Every structure is written in structure tokens, then in C-alpha cells.
């Protein structure tokens, strides 16, 4: 079936089986491999992307459900090449080790900060509950998100 999405600001058309998940449409259909498939069971958050500004697990959404929506992947966060403030904060505060969970962490943080620009540590931890880091680098990840909030204020 046909599906039309606006991905990172560009209109894209795809022909997909109805059962195709959004993450597969992004990775296999559009070559946007920044959305990672980690657990594939809606636990780990590595596949998180923004759909109409809200963080969703793209392994738990049919591509067809996103028809007409604006999808932002990690590739779309820095369109001019200059890092997004949250990306910048992760670099500055060592918010990543292996980097596998990082796109999901950053996009979830972007959703959080769009609604709660000045979250305390507990709020950040609650918001990142659906994003697992197997390097267990949670402390610097939380510090990065907090730093991005402070930087923006």
C-alpha cells in the first residue's frame, strides 16, 4: 500500500506491505539507519523517532499509521550540520559510550524538553525510562539532558 510521510522535512512516498513497521520503512525504505533496532519488543527505545513532535518507538508503529505525519529521525536533528543543542550537550557531557542507544535517548529528550523546558533530575529519569543503555552510562546521559535544558534557558 502507498504511504506518504514527511521525513526530516522532505515529502517521501513509499510502497509498503501493511505489516511494515515504521522502523523498517525508515531503515530499509529510506536508508535512515539512525533509528536502531535493539530489542524489537518495545522495551529498549533505540528505535525512538519523533512523529509529529512526539517520541514514539518506531518498532511498535505500522508505517501506515504514520501516513501524512512529520517524522524526525536523528539524521534530521541537525539539518544545517550544526549540532542540535541536545546533541551538543551529549558530546560535551560524555552522554554516550558505544552510541547504540544515543539516537533514541536524544530524541526522547527532545520531546521532553519541548514540553518541560526545565525538568529536574527525577523528571528526566522518568522520561528516559523507556530508553535502555547497555553501557549503563545513565548518569552522564541524565547530566547531558539537564545541561541541554540549562543551556537553552
Amino acid at each position, binding site marked *: 500500500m502507498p504511504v506518504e510521510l514527511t521525513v526530516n522535512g522532505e515529502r517521501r512516498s513509499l510502497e509498503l506491505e501493511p*505489516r511494515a513497521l515504521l522502523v523498517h520503512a525508515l531503515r530499509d525504505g529510506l536508508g535512515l539507519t539512525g533509528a536502531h533496532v535493539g530489542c524489537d519488543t518495545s522495551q529498549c527505545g533505540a528505535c525512538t523517532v519523533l512523529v509529529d513532535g512526539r*517520541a514514539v518507538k518506531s518498532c511498535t508503529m505500522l508505517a501506515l499509521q504514520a501516513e501524512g505525519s512529520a517524522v524526525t529521525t536523528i539524521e534530521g536533528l541537525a539539518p544545517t550540520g550544526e549540532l542540535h543543542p541536545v546533541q551538543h550537550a551529549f558530546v560535551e557531557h560524555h552522554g554516550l559510550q558505544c552510541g547504540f542507544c544515543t539516537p533514541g535517548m536524544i530524541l*526522547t529528550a527532545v520531546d521532553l524538553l519541548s514540553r518541560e523546558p526545565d525538568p529536574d533530575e527525577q523528571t528526566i529519569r522518568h522520561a528516559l525510562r523507556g530508553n535502555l543503555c547497555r553501557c549503563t552510562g545513565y548518569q552522564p546521559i541524565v547530566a547531558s539532558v539537564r545541561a541541554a535544558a540549562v543551556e537553552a534557558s
Partner: protein
Amino acid sequence: MIPAEVRYRRATSLEDALAALAEEDARALAGGQSLLPVMKLRVARPSLVVDIGRLDFAGLELEDGTLRIGALTTWDALARAPELSTPALAAIPECASAIGDLQVRNRGTIGGSLAHADPASDMPAVLLALGAEVELRTAAEERSLPVAELFVGPFTTALAQDELITEIRIPLPGSGSGSAYVAVEHPASGFALAGAAALVRPDGSSTVSLTGVSATPLLLGEKGDGSEAVGSVEVFGDRFAPAEYRRALAATVVRRALETARARSEEERR
């Protein structure tokens, strides 16, 4: 993991959705946070998914002493709704904000969750304690059902194949009431090992309910502090929590939910 082959239809109206659901093995797809995981595991293999996610029955309305919650209202919307920031309704955002995670709350809907009927689901306990009813529609008829009658067994409801939940209706508790939801969650899955909701009214009377401990969520009755009633509940055990441990957890969450609801009620009346 991808679901088995399936056909897809994006419903354009409630009537369109209800007509499409007449097909045997058709399933309604709302936010997909319960249905898609079981389709990926191929525990569910519908022939057709009817996407109702774009239909216009999300949102909250307070009128004539009733809170009406559209079935497509997301957990995130319930967690943040200003209409629910009263002691009497506090259990709803308290429960909604702890369901799943941010991403799941952004997509998952209250109606979809009720229709999925996971026995460890949190919100049914709150709806039972608040005396909620669900509004149901088929192409031919409308009916309403107390939430207690919606759940027939684990993952099993009283819904007909071609029937949708359109709305949840909650009678507004009298002013000076307080409610609360308390759960002990499995640390990995976040599902309730035992969860309790309590409503305490201005006259001190209370209603307490439990989830996560038996085949369906259940009311513990109107009298006493609820903790005695836990003793007579048929509690199941599994590899996460043996029955006796779960029973102890149940007694604890009942006590905590009642304490918090009572404190909110007293605060409100002060």
C-alpha cells in the same frame, strides 16, 4: 520481528470502522501499544486491522457531574490533563503517568488498553474504584457497561467482535473526596505485580480495587479498610511473584492507596 501478513484499512468514521469490524478476525488498531506487540509475537494474527487512530474521540469533558474520557485519549494526555488535577480524580493522572514509558504513553490509549484486558494493566483498578462505565457501539446498537462487567478473564472482554469502546464515563466524586493509585511494579516490564486504587468520600466511606493479582481486576467492596478483603481474593502466582508474596504486596498497596486517598480527602476538606 514483523507481524504476519495482514490487510489494513484506515477508518474514515466510526460507522466505517464498525462496518469493517464485522469481518471475522478483524481487529481495531488504536495506538497499537498492546496489539502490535502481540501481532509481532504472532500471538494475535488478525486478517484485517482497522486503524481507528485518527477518529475523533479523544479528549476530556466535564458535564452534569460526569467526567467523559474519549476512548482514544492517550495516557500522556491523561497524565497532563488540568481537568484531573483535583484530589477526587488524582488517581487517574497518578496511574497514567506511570504506565509504560513516555513513548508508550504518547501512543497508547485508554480504550485500546481496556479492550486488550491485560490482567496486570493499571488503569482498570482506578476505573473500578471510581465506578466508571464504558460506552460501547456496534453498527446496530449503543450500550453502556460497568467496567466490572467489561472484563471476563485474562485478555478477554465482554466486547462483541464488531463492537468498539467509544468513551469512559466517570461519575464525579463529591467534593471533599480523595483518590489514589499505588502499585508495586515488576522492575523490568513495569507491569503491576499488585496495584490498588482507592476512593475515599467525605463521609469517610471508601471503595478499593485491585489489579495484577487475579484473572481480572476486582473490587474489594465498600466496607472496612479493604485489607481484610485481600485475604479472600484468589491470587495467582508466577515466576515473578509467588501467590503468597503477591498477596502480601496486595495488602500493602491497598493500605498505601487508602492512606493516600484519605489524606487527599482530608486535605481537601480542611
